[in-house]
């Protein structure tokens, strides 16, 4: 079963120079912390805070590509965890060219809309990139219950307990 999650917060990990994305379910019962790199963390933070850059940043570019191709992103799914690495996938709905009629000169063939012939195309991604894209495209973020049952909530609790007020000093947006 897939459970929808929301990005609750993104915080800097003062010990590792990485950032932690905190995902929560709608009832605030489940919490999934995912460690991401600085660049990906910033990409997520910009999307959360609605900051728009004068020039398209890398995830904005991916969004622009998809908008130009008119291939809708349906959802992203954090589907497994191997070792300490989470794996995610992007789920697109692509209308094959053949389904758009034989008239190849149509100005905007994809405007015919999504037909029953649309095919789901999935692409492997890191959760950080997938979340940065999902926030920009306004699509849901899902996690499998298998991943939620595997994650160790103790690790975050332990990490949070060890935090001292001074650790927040290096925080740098």
């Amino acid at each position, binding site marked *: 079963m897939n459970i929808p999650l929301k990005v609750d917060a993104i915080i800097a990990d003062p010990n590792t120079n990485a950032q932690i994305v905190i995902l929560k379910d709608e009832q605030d019962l489940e919490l999934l912390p995912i460690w991401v790199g600085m660049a990906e963390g910033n*990409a997520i933070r910009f999307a959360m805070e609605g900051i728009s850059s004068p020039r398209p*940043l*890398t995830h904005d*570019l991916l969004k622009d590509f998809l908008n130009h*191709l008119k291939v809708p992103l349906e959802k992203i799914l954090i589907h497994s965890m191997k070792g300490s690495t989470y794996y995610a996938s992007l789920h697109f709905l692509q209308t094959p*060219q053949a389904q758009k009629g034989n008239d190849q000169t149509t100005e905007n063939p994809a405007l015919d809309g999504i037909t029953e012939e649309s095919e789901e195309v*999935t692409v*492997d991604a890191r959760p950080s990139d997938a979340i940065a894209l999902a926030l920009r495209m306004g699509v849901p973020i899902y996690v499998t219950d298998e991943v939620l049952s595997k994650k160790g909530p103790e690790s975050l609790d332990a990490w949070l307990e060890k935090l001292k007020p001074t650790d927040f000093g290096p925080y740098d947006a």
Partner: protein
Amino acid sequence: MLVQMKVRGLMFDPYNNAYIIILRGEENTDVLPIWVGRPEANAISLALEGIFTPRPMTHDLIKNVLDSLEAKIISIVVTELKDNTYLSKTHLTYQGSEITVDSRPSDAIALALRADVPIFVADEAIKKPSSEELDRWLENLRPEDFGKYDT
């Protein structure tokens, strides 16, 4: 007119805490230095050195998405210099039509290296002052500045 260029170097600019990509034409006459941010420089460096990461980095993801959707990057063009910012376009083909998407040169170059497509620079973007600036910058470089180079 468009000039085809290749990435000839990537270096750290300690004064601006940024990285510089050096594009150079085949005849070595025109040089175009483009300042880029750290993550983008890293993405270019990984492609230049052919380093394969266990998980797809962001530009690898873009390439994988385009491949999966059967969209093909055909070229990238650095079109102009506007307010000290280089603008560029990424050209793709998808389902029989050509699509042009505005991109930063850093992202476009990172993609061009991964897709193995040509990098073009428009005449208008090659301005002499920029290479004079580079000369001046190079003349002022001290050996210890290179210590800060950090991949």
